[in-house]
């Protein structure tokens, strides 16, 4: 079994890396097509974003059109970008003039910090609540978490953010409303994302626990004399972990969606904020850089989840998951 795992892992990593590259390129290509499909003059939009609406002259627009070579056929622009990406150069921002890699590195640092805290915070609440609800299905806690999860899931992220601002900033005066310079600036954006993440997580964890509780190996463990908690800790936790890890990886998509809203609301300079501004400014190199980053990160997280699942349940390798 151990040997099979050792052989399977490199194959899986290789396959996922190829997938990551493909996903990132497809995503960037779609973004390129979509940005250009939006009606309007690219050079004018870029000039307005760079100089401000009251400071944009016809000369400035033409200068940008020429310097960024926006008059060329789209296929040539795309081909040049692709050629540059192969050499590791993802271009310069039309608006700021800085290398896209440099901009994304700065923004992704902020986003990574926010994501990590939000994710940890959500599971710090979701894991104990989900397990407790799963160990006593249809009990008071189970019903209460079901209700809370339904309520939180139905609220859009910005509503959760505004509600938290109303309570913790405007009423209690405990936390700052926006910014990124102090550690406390992270609390509200992270909590906003965490509450959104937590709602479905609690139910997934609860269902995984209920399923494991009904499994024959758990019945066997109980017959051997283990109590419910001990039996679950020794045999159930590992088995319940596989769907939870898979779901946690899938939540990255929700998290990305949340970044767009939360980073704008809290004036937090992460990837979501950068991408929203780049889309409004038609800053194509930044939009495509973001797409590459999001695509590869998603594939990376998916790979990580896959490896954790194989470690939790080596039968997955036996079933051929690693060699496909």
């Amino acid at each position, binding site marked *: 079994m151990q040997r099979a795992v050792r052989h399977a892992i490199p194959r899986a990593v290789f396959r996922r890396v190829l997938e990551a590259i493909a996903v990132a390129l497809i995503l960037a290509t779609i973004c390129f097509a979509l940005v250009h499909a939006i009606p*309007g*003059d690219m050079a*004018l*939009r870029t*000039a*307005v*974003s*760079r*100089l*401000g*609406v*009251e*400071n*944009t*002259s*016809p*000369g*400035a*627009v033409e200068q940008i059109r020429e310097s960024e070579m926006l008059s060329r056929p789209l296929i040539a622009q795309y081909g040049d970008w692709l050629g540059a990406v192969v050499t590791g150069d993802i271009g310069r921002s039309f*608006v*700021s*003039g*800085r290398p896209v890699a440099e901009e994304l590195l700065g923004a992704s*640092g*902020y986003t*990574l*910090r926010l994501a*990590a805290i939000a994710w940890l915070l959500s599971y710090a609440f979701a894991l104990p609540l989900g397990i407790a609800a799963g160990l006593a299905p249809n009990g008071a806690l189970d019903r209460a978490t079901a209700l809370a999860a339904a309520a939180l899931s139905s609220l859009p992220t910005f509503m959760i953010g505004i509600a938290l*601002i109303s309570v913790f*900033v*405007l009423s209690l*005066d405990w936390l*700052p*409303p*926006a*910014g*990124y*310079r*102090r*550690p406390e*600036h992270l609390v509200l954006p992270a909590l906003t994302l965490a509450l959104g993440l937590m709602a479905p997580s609690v139910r997934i964890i609860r269902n995984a626990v209920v399923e494991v509780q009904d499994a024959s190996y758990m019945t066997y463990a109980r017959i051997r004399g283990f109590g419910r908690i001990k039996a679950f800790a020794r045999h159930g936790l590992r088995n319940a972990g596989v769907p939870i890890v898979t779901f946690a990886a899938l939540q990255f998509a929700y998290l990305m969606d949340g970044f767009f809203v939360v980073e*704008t*609301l*809290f*004036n937090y*300079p992460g990837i979501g904020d950068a991408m929203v501004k780049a889309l*409004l400014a038609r800053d194509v190199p930044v939009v495509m850089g973001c797409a590459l980053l999001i695509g590869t990160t998603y594939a990376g997280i998916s790979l990580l989840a896959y490896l954790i699942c194989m470690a939790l349940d080596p039968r997955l390798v036996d079933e051929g998951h690693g060699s496909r």
Partner: protein
Amino acid sequence: MPRNIWLAALIAAMFASPLSAFAQDELRVVEPFQLQRLDTQTGGFQLRANGVTETLVQTNPEASVLPALAERWETSADGLHWTFYLRPDVTFHDGTSMTPETVAASFKALLPKGNLIKNAKIKDVTAGEGTVTFTLEQPFAPFLAYLLDPAVPVLAPSSFGPDGEVTAIVSTGPYRIESAELPQGLNLVRHDAYWGEVAKIERVRVDGVPNPETRVNIALAGEGDLVLEIPTTAIARVDRSGEAKIVRAPVPRVVMMLVNVKKPQFADVGIRRALSLAVNREAIAVTVMGNAELAANQYFPPAMKGWHFDDFKPQTFNLTEANRILEELGWVRGADGIREKDGIKFAGMMQTFPQRAYLPVIAEALQAQLKEIGFDLTIQVGESSLIPEAQNNGTLELGLGIRTMIYQVPDPVARLTTDFATDEPSTDATGATGWKSEAMREAVAAYNRTSDPAERLPLQRKMAEILQDELPVIPITFTDEKYAISERLEGFVADPVMQTRPLNHLSFKE
């Protein structure tokens, strides 16, 4: 154990460096603009407004031009040579002295990047004995005002790289840039060797926060000392918060309806007059802008002396008169109440943008008001650049935009030129569409030839009259600037001409 060390290092790295310390004694300025590049062409206005850059002259609240880095100036008899006598003992932020040579070199490097100053057609800049002389291609009377183009300040030689490009902003203002976190903000520190009033507050943090509600929350939480552009809807909340007070200052900015006079339903000046008479400006000024006095009955606001004329016939709300004009012109109401003439519907789509939160609201008010005279108005809210695009490709019907009349250059003629007296394509949501007036062009040209106030006044009246009579744009309301000033700050005086916010005059209460 080693695994734990790695984990600890990772967590420490995540929370370490970028979260810089917050100084309680720093002045926190929150503005709606984010500085995209640290150069004068992109961020010139913010750099000057926050006291970083300066030039030879400055303005006072009446928009008069006063000495700054130049103590005085003189013009040659033919109006082609302007000589400025430099203030002695001026030190750049890097500690070097300002000399005629450094000033001339700075202008030579930055003039090609200038915006409105290009209209002055500067041929050469030369350094003399304590002086700098500009040679123009032709006499240009408002040269002093155009010299205030914020894209062309005076920068030290250390601002420029080997290729002549701006690599740093080293100027002479009361604050110097300590560090820049673009596009989020700037960290400024006092320039102790400043030639004028040295700043009382040592450090300034300028944050760009585009979302108006976030700026309001910052003001309500007491997290900003000077917060710009507070929406009207939040004024009472901020005033009640106990953290900040609202200071309102009229600014030379008009909200106006842009009309494409090439469209048949707007071609006749009588139709534009009827549309103007159907607008209840007072109601819009009270309900949307929170101040009845902001109703715009002519293009220039009352504060602009010499441009606003009390004896102009006001564009007063008068539905009966508006309907009478339309009947007379042959526009007949259909079964649905919408007028028609020769198969042309009395209708139009108004494009506007949400960056100024009041614009979509005013558009909706106009939609309801114009329906009373049988006009079918539809609204499209998009990016601000959509309006000039539509102007240039001829598809614009109506637009709702703003114009800050003395933005950047403290002479309204700079903007009148680009908005109403040029054949160049429009690049912002401000100018006339399909309208051309030789009389306006002649008045602008005559104004540019003379600096005599007595000669200029009738020309100013002429320009204002043309706009009032021909309505190439229909003024709706003026705006005021609403600043949230923290309770701990004192000394703030709003600059009505929006050229600067003199941070060096501010202090914290004891």
